[in-house]
């Protein structure tokens, strides 16, 4: 037993006031859906949090019509400055209700409260603030001549950063004058529904934001709806490909932010202690449920043993458990299905010959949990080096030269992000130039900012979100 035991420090849930069931948010009001309702559970306890409506084709149609009416009559006629005012208002309300959002996000998603409190919610508010500032300056954002909205945007977001992904989608869409029909993931719909309340609180004109809950069929209904002008999707590469096929030959535009298998590359002259922190943050942040996670550690052979030893010691101090405890570092896996996928891929890793290690920590008896795990002796052909695990599982590979590091890093169908750890500035620049990844971090990892564009190469998708670049997919330009 350690000398310094941390007593439980749970964040109170009293700040969250959950309804037993939720309808759909269409035209500024909560309405009953026509589909069957489904349950959203807490992945850390498997308790039911609320019942949520599944939107049918007819419900999606109503949402798109509401969005079209709001676009034509109100939002597209409003000045950029006035749109900005609404976005600022939403941003401020998100800050004011930050604790409520953080607790609900941790309940519904399973992520540790310190991450929802310090990362997800503040960043979500920051995206609204940032895009609010652009709303009346689009002419000067170098987007092209006469930038103007597409119309109605359909948006489908994942379960890993529910409110943050919502803000990445909704904030630039509204700033540029589009109206929105958004579907949150079926396992994490609750903060999106709370966001609907924020839209009401901000007096956002009805129909500008519509939120329809449901699973794949609801998403498909949005994709296929003829009234949608543009789609924005974040999620798996498999679903991204289906969307691309569905809209082929139509006038619909799309941005896709898909999977990743990022290389986190550590050279022998790296600041080793900080690199270890970066490796931990790269793969264990948000239980590894991060599309840009540093899931492949490429470490220079001369320091491989040293880095691995320090990494394992550090992973031994990670605290896995109750997402609402302020000292928890790693929370629950989001769903049974995701846990099953992680288990299947780690079993494949073992059977294909990689050496498995985990920190041996105790896990709670109910809920979905997975210990932070490291595979050493991994080769490029192992499935755990190729497939996105989307869990707290790191694959360690080695290299000898910078050229070999680049070749291995790029030897993947994905290209979302990469990390470089070295004290040599020239090497950082050379590597960043060679790596086929949309985001390259140097001596850090998993750092996000609304001013910085984010997006992928190859099967990690197309289009950029965030920054000035993130406005481009939401406008038409030219005559």
């Amino acid at each position, binding site marked *: 037993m350690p000398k310094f035991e*941390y007593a439980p420090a749970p964040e109170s849930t009293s700040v969250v006031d959950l309804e037993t069931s939720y309808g759909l948010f269409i035209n500024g009001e909560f309405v009953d859906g026509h589909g069957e309702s489904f349950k959203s559970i807490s992945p850390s306890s498997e308790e039911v949090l609320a019942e949520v409506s599944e939107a049918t084709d007819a419900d999606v149609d109503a949402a798109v019509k509401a969005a079209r009416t709001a676009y034509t009559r109100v939002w597209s006629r409003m000045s950029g400055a006035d749109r900005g005012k609404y976005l600022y208002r939403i941003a401020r309300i998100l800050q004011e209700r930050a604790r409520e959002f953080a607790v609900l996000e941790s309940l519904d998603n399973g992520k540790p409260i310190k991450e929802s409190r310090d990362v997800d919610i503040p960043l979500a508010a920051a995206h609204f603030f940032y895009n609010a500032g652009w709303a009346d300056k689009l002419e000067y954002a170098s987007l092209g001549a006469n930038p103007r909205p597409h119309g109605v945007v359909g948006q489908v977001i994942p379960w890993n950063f529910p409110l943050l992904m919502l803000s990445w989608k909704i904030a630039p869409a509204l700033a540029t004058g589009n109206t929105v029909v958004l579907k949150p993931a079926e396992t994490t719909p609750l903060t999106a529904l709370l966001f609907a309340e924020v839209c009401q609180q901000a007096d956002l004109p009805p129909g500008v934001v519509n939120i329809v809950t449901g699973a794949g069929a609801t998403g498909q209904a949005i994709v296929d709806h003829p009234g949608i002008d543009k789609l924005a999707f974040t999620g798996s590469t498999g679903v991204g490909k289906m969307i691309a096929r569905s809209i082929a030959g139509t006038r619909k535009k799309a941005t896709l932010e898909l999977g990743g298998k990022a290389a986190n590359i550590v050279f022998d002259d790296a600041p080793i*202690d900080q690199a270890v922190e970066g490796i931990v943050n790269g793969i264990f942040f948000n239980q590894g449920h991060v599309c840009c996670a540093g899931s492949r550690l490429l470490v220079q052979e001369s320091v491989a043993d040293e880095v691995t030893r320090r990494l394992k010691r550090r992973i031994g101090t990670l605290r896995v458990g109750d997402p609402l405890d302020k*000292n928890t570092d790693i929370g629950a896996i989001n769903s049974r299905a995701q846990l099953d996928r992680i288990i299947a891929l780690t079993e494949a890793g073992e059977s294909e010959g990689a050496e498995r290690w985990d920190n041996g920590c105790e896990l709670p008896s109910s809920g979905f949990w997975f210990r932070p795990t490291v595979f050493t002796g991994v080769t490029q052909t192992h499935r755990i080096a190729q497939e996105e695990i989307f869990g707290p599982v790191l694959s360690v590979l080695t290299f000898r030269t910078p050229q070999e590091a680049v070749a291995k890093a790029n030897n993947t169908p994905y290209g979302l992000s990469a990390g470089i750890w070295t004290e040599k500035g020239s090497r950082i620049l050379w590597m960043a130039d060679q790596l086929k990844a949309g985001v390259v971090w140097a001596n850090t990892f998993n750092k996000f900012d609304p001013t910085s564009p984010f997006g992928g190469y190859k099967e990690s998708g197309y289009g950029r979100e965030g920054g000035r670049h993130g406005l481009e997919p939401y406008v038409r330009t030219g005559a």
Partner: protein
Amino acid sequence: MSTPTDTAVGASVDATARARDLLGVSRLTNQALTTWLHGLPGVDQVGCEARAASLGTRSIKTTSKQWAIDTAISMIDLTTLEGADTPGRVRGLAAKALVPDPSDLSTPRPAAVCVYGDMVTTAKQALGPDSGVKVAAVATAFPSGRASMAVKLADTRDAVKAGADEIDMVIDRGAFLAGDYLTVFNQIAEVKKACGDARLKVIMETGELVTYDNVRRASWLSMLAGGDFIKTSTGKVQPAATLPVTLIMLEAVRDWRDLTGDQVGVKPAGGIKTSKDAIKFLVTVSEVAGDDWLDNRWFRFGASSLLNDLLLQRQRLTTGAYSGASYIADDSPSTAY
């Protein structure tokens, strides 16, 4: 790793011979030391500060807070280092160390009182032989260290002869910053010899070293030369003990023990004033160096006002209500509460 007695570890070890062995050289030169120290992995400033900040967000409640407060009290080197110090003031400090809180005699005693060399006799007498509270003396022309080696050694021997259990020396920051590592090494090694059985704390004055790379190198150099403790600051220079600097030093003692098997202590000093701050340091000790350092043999706080805030928090945990400065007995009461 820890030894049963409280005298210095390896007092008889020849630091130069051990350094030659560790560095793999036949003669210890400045070149050899430079190559070795500059071969240590660099410290990324942003990453180091981010790690310290994240350790600072740990939420320490109820029973763990109780444990942390008592442990922090037991780790304090209760310090007075003023030109205006008098025997009366030092006796008052010693009395405070013996009975930190007259309203609760279960309160643990601090580890030591820390005074200038001429006050050692007074402090020893006031504390008596069996209190368990040590006397630490600053020496080697504290705080600047700007004196000849003969003076520094005489300063040290004087304090040891007067009965100091621990010596807090300052390194020659000028020599360190000029890259003259061998001079710094030799001075520490000679002072260490002059300490005899007294444990040696090596003050690096990290506020003057400025970069984390320098802090790491100075830490390793101090340990190599035989320091029993590495200490951040004199308290006379800002910034003094910051959490990131202490984090770097805790990594250094952890890695030093991995390399040599010898354990070295860490003492942040100056600027740690509140219980909340002290608890952040204990969290960092626990998560970076580990349990073996969570003991006043291996970790100290150099502080004067910290004790009163810890006592205030301790009273609050006991009684459930905040008291105030009127309930914290002190010879130089603070009006800060």
